């Protein structure tokens, strides 16, 4: 059997969606409902791919149910408070607030409402919120139901196709190139508009649990779309932020937000409730503050650390018991097999691996988008964790739909013209397949472990100019060895391309972190040589682009100031 077929399959469409997770499927629905023909390409199968494939239990929203905190204005005040200097409020308004009522209605229409079986909302507060913005719901079948909606709308879904590059013609993004990870067949999709929805970057820092795939967010999200967009000439922002969170010890499962939302208390090994001592909002402080204080406890030798839920009412504990598996299907199994019992004793927790992701729950990092989800490269749109003003479940559902709708509108004004780039893809296909044909070389794991070591030692929780410079030097030294990777099969070929993306994201992250000579949302960007937050000079976005239009050979940073109305 030939390892790959040199004759690609060619498709034409109005809108191509790269990545079929929560944001991508919502984008497909948005584009198709606007009348566009749609192709979705995904490394997995859209019924279960992406961060919430196995389920989800939370959606962040205000509902205008009466209280002062439950309004658009109060919500935007919260967005500014936790994410000052990392987002344009006007973008959050158009991508999230303007889309929210339709999103809530759509969730119900596809068969996965945000309400409880009795029709009410179950709401909790944590992470610095002025009121209970988290809506708890059962999203275990959200992806299968969305996938059903996507297929019903007539979208063409290419499963197990990894997108490896965007097609660019005279500066316009005109589609993408991908290969099937089981057959090796290449796909060339010409599109009038392209939406990138490939998530954030994981597997980029050393993993405290050893296995690099034991990650909080989906380990198969490796920044591929952001790197493709960068190469296509798009700008990226917020790439300096290394996101961290709190997890059950040993298993990077999401779902523990629910514990603090219900009133769980962070505790150290001296039985002290350290968040209550160290932050005015206590256990409900913003996520980065919980992480920072937990790191301080560990560094001071007061670990192990725990979440204590013993004081919660039986009713609340019953609710937790029943819903913990909504966010991570296997979390209840894990806690049971580990002998943990929320009712009987505090549950041991830890700080997660680092990841490249947005600095708050309400805005992201990656492809720079405007209020219509359009990137700076014409023809390109972005949403979900791959975009800089979209994040989390609520962002993917609202912003994803908006991106699809905007792409469909843009597509109407464009003609498909087979470009030189599209005709001349043979050489690129040969390049992408090279690790499979190489006689000898390094496994992707060896290169990736090296990236993680460099990132953790130089671009991690504490940063200095000299350390970042050394880190960048090492990443540059490693870069030529990407071409020494050898893989045994098409699955490995997919992983080796992910490794390439991870290295490029690492270089962007170090470059942007060096450029921002202040600290913001510590420890997500903590410069020991500039430990204070400097709003006078750094309230805004670090914008990253390729230098001189060249790919992977270095980046240039610029600064985009953000002015907030309230100050």
């Amino acid at each position, binding site marked *: 059997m030939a390892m790959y077929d040199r004759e690609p399959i060619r498709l034409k469409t109005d809108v191509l969606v790269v990545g079929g997770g929560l944001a991508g499927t919502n984008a497909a629905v948005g584009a198709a409902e606007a009348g566009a023909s749609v192709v979705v390409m995904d*490394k*997995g*199968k859209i*019924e*279960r*791919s*992406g961060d919430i*494939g*196995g*389920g989800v239990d939370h959606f962040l929203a205000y509902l205008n149910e009466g209280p002062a905190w439950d309004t658009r204005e109060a919500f935007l005040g919260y967005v500014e408070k936790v994410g000052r200097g990392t987002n344009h409020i006007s973008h959050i308004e158009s991508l999230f607030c303007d889309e929210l009522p339709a999103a809530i209605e759509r969730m119900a229409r596809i068969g996965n409402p945000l309400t409880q079986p009795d029709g009410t909302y179950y709401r909790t507060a944590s992470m610095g919120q002025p009121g209970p913005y988290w809506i708890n719901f059962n999203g*275990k079948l959200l992806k*299968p139901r969305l996938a059903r909606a996507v297929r019903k709308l007539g979208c063409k879904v290419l*499963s*197990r196709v990894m997108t490896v590059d965007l097609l660019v013609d005279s500066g316009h993004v005109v589609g993408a190139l991908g290969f099937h*990870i089981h057959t090796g067949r290449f796909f060339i999709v010409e599109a009038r508009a392209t939406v990138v929805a490939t998530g954030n970057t994981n597997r980029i820092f050393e993993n405290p*649990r*050893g*296995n690099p*795939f*034991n*990650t909080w967010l*989906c*380990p*198969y999200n490796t920044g591929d779309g952001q790197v493709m967009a960068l190469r296509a000439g798009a700008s990226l922002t917020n790439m300096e932020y290394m996101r961290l969170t709190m997890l059950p*010890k*040993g*298993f990077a*499962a999401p779902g523990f937000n629910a514990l603090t939302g219900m009133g769980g208390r962070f505790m150290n090994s001296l039985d002290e409730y350290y968040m209550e001592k160290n932050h005015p909002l206590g256990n409900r402080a913003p996520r980065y503050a919980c992480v920072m204080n937990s790191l301080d406890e560990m560094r001071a030798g007061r670990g192990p650390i725990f979440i204590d839920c013993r004081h919660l009412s039986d009713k609340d504990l019953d609710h937790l018991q029943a819903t913990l*598996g909504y966010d*991570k*299907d*296997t979390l209840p*199994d*894990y806690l049971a*097999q*580990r002998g943990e019992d929320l009712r009987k004793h505090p549950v041991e927790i830890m700080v997660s691996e680092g990841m490249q992701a947005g600095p708050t729950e309400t805005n992201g990092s990656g492809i720079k988008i405007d209020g219509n989800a359009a990137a700076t490269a014409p023809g390109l749109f972005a949403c979900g964790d791959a975009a800089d003003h979209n994040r989390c479940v609520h962002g993917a559902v609202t912003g994803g739909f908006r991106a699809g709708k905007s792409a469909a509108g843009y597509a109407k004004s464009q003609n498909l013209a087979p470009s030189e780039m599209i005709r001349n893809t043979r050489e690129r296909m040969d390049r992408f397949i090279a690790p499979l044909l190489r006689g000898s070389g390094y496994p992707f794991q060896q290169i990736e472990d090296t990236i993680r070591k460099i990132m953790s030692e130089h671009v991690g929780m504490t940063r200095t100019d000299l350390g970042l410079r050394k880190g960048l030097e090492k990443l540059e030294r490693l870069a030529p060895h990407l071409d020494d990777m050898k893989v045994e099969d098409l*699955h490995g070929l*997919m992983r080796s391309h992910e490794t390439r993306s991870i290295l490029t994201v690492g270089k962007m992250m170090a470059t942007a972190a060096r450029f921002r000579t202040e600290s913001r949302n510590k420890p997500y960007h903590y410069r020991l040589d500039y430990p204070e937050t400097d709003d006078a000079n750094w309230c805004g976005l670090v914008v990253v682009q390729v230098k001189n239009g060249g790919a992977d050979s270095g980046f240039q940073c610029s600064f985009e100031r953000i002015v907030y109305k309230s100050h």
Partner: protein
Amino acid sequence: MPMVFDYERCDGCGDCAAVCPGDVIYLKHDAVRKRPYNRYVDECWHCGSCRQDCPQQAIKVTFPPDMLCT
């Protein structure tokens, strides 16, 4: 051993392999039928999609000692 397949219950439909977001699960063919197995066992995210979608309830999750005992 993240996902454990009960070959007595499994009817070889392949839904688990199809939905696995990490392309971790494959089917092997013997003389009689197809059976799923973890081809890239270290790459499992423990998302539970395969277990949820298994029409025969033939999949269990067993966490490895490096996760349970540290």
